[in-house]
């Protein structure tokens, strides 16, 4: 059996016997399907119980809140779609949506590229001290954002920091990058990429190790060079990993919050306010819990659209592989 793309093609043998007329086994099929559903349910119930109770139901409660003028305390009254209208008429919120899109456009592709690059590099046999490098590269993920921003703050402090000091020695004057309305958002994105690419690297490493060696050997025997191997063996083999990575990068990008909360508080002049930052300030600081919930669902809609597109593409390709 062949497929048009490289990759493992596995199909469990359907029939062990030869040909001949098939007996009518529609009832058997139905009961087998029931059996499968039953088994699937048993496997799914523990996890789904937790998720339904502590994620799905709260999400529904939050959805309900979004149609009210809830402040976070006391009574709330139904106001229909008013909050949703406000989302798009409030300039600060719209600004945050735009910022988030810019952020995602920078963060998504870069973090995946860097993560994949690092994984490819550190998966090779010929790189010395692989374990050491992998650990170093993973460290940013391991320290908390609070500590990371403290450390970066020290390094980049325009008056007391090491980096401006060193650059100053080279004659390069470096201002406070987080105070510039042009550079604050890219700077915050860079910190996020720095902090999370190790996560993607590890995932790619796990995925890379799921690609059987003999595929590479076969490719090499066919005369494929490094690039050809990448395209013909690696990329297809990483397909399901890539689906996960892309969905996660999208979610991570659109839910950017921690680094902004800690490093810039949305400034300067709202340049780094993201959607989730607005959700937080509206909901937890400005007594606009209903509005914040509505904004969350607008975010959900945007992310879901992008994520679903990716999933559709991804699961279709997975079906091709099966």
């Amino acid at each position, binding site marked *: 059996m062949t497929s048009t793309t490289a990759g493992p093609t596995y199909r469990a043998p359907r029939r062990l016997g030869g040909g001949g007329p098939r007996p009518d086994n529609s009832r058997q099929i139905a009961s087998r399907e029931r059996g499968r559903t039953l088994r699937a349910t*048993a*496997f799914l*119930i*523990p996890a789904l119980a937790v998720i339904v109770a502590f994620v799905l139901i709260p999400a529904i409660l939050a959805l309900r809140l979004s149609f009210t003028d809830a*402040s*976070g*305390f*006391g009574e709330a009254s139904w106001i229909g779609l008013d909050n949703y209208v406000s989302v798009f008429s409030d300039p*600060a919120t719209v600004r945050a949506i735009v910022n988030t899109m810019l952020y995602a456009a920078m963060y998504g592709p870069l973090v995946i590229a860097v993560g994949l690059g690092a994984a490819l590099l550190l998966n090779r046999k010929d790189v010395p001290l692989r374990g050491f490098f992998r650990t170093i590269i993973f460290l940013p993920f391991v320290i908390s954002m609070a500590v990371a921003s403290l450390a970066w703050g020290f390094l980049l*402090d*325009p*008056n*007391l920091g090491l980096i401006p000091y060193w650059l100053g020695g080279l004659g390069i004057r470096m*201002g*406070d990058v987080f*105070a510039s309305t042009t550079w604050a958002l890219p700077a915050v994105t860079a910190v996020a990429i720095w902090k999370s690419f190790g996560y993607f690297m590890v995932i790619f490493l796990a995925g890379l190790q799921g690609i059987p060696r003999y595929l590479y050997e076969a490719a090499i025997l066919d005369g494929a060079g490094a690039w050809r191997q990448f395209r013909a063996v690696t990329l297809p083999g990483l397909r399901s990993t890539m689906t996960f990575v892309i969905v996660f990068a999208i979610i991570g990008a659109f839910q950017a919050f921690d680094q902004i909360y800690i490093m810039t*508080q*949305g*400034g*300067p*002049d*709202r340049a780094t306010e993201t959607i989730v930052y607005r959700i937080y*300030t509206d909901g*937890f*600081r*400005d*007594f606009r819990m209903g509005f914040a919930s509505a904004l969350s669902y607008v975010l959900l809609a945007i992310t879901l659209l992008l994520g679903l597109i990716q999933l559709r593409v991804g699961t279709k390709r997975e079906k091709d592989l099966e």
Partner: protein
Amino acid sequence: MMSTTPQLRRPGVLIAAGAAVALTLAACSGGADPGGDGGTTPVTIWHGFTEADGDVVAQLAEDFNASQDDYEVTIEVNPWNVITDKLLPAISAGNGPDLVVQPADAGEGYVNQGVFVPMDDFYADPENETDTYYPHVVDYATFDGTHYAVPMAYGPFSVWYNTEMFAAAGITEENFPTTWEEWIAVAEQLTVDSNGDGTPEIYGLALPDADGTFLPSFVQAGGGSVYTDGEVTLDTPQNVETLQWWQDAYEGGWGPTNVTLPEAVDLFKAGKAAMTVIGPWIITGAESVGLDIDVFEMPAGPDGIVTQAAANYWWLTSQADDGATAGAEAFLRYYNSHDAQVLWAEQSFYPPNRTDIAADAIADTPFVGTMIAHTENAYIRLYGIPGGLTDVNAELSALNTTVSQGGDVAVATTETAATITEILSRFE
């Protein structure tokens, strides 16, 4: 990988195991058991003070508990931002505090939401000695004629200086600056730029501009205000004049630009600035880096001395029932009693909340005596803003950077005032 020989297990076993774990965990409740020994009413208090300040509060709570049998105070310490995150849901669910420390500006929002309840009864009872409180401090916690909070910690922002640098420049108590002009002159005098590259090695005065911290007090010292009696009063010729004065002053190059309050203070602590403006908590910070500092009062602007205060109050929440309220009031009476306040001042370096404590009662503690006098002219920043504080601050920061780095002050002031009005219109 060939199959090994595992025991066949039914899924049910796994689920049952999971349920058993869950039940065991639920049984091992890690929470503190409220309502202690027979008859004492529990009073829950939340605050965010740490280090020395937090220790004193804990000490006072302990002493209070030991001194009587009716009430037992339990303290939960959280970072300030977590308190804000947690307060509303916790109170709604009945897990919140009876008494909570919050700054005055945050308090009003909560009052409007019904989270904090009136405390007129406390003020009406002479046993509580509320007549010893500073009147303007009490006024800040009074809305529509009703008292809502009790003073907890009122720390004026003063000018702290590096004693070594002042001594080297020959500046002594006699010639401490008392007006803005003198202040900037001293700052310029103390600025050191030995290699003449435009960036001083040592700044005369480190003031924050990136977060708009002091903009309201400067405006006020110039005779105007940002927000008064429900109106945004920022856009006036007088305020523009005040801000213009500062813009011109900044050209003296005595101060860093694009710095927030923590960054400005870090500069001072690192010995890169001769002066900074901050509250009394700098004392422990300076000690930890071995820096010798001293303090004088904020110099006067055209309309007098105006400085900022970090003002924290005790607020009574809607969760507190009659018993807890009585307990809370008893604790507050204790906390603001004469001896307790002496202890508070001595260990937290905040001036005491009572006017009847003489400076020599706390003479052993450095600086606190001096700062008592500063309390008079220390006001709460942006008092009365009904909400949207984060957004309003964002606007003021932008205006402040125009002042410190250049731009049309008049235009910026008008724009900022308009945006703030629009932000606040949401809360009418």
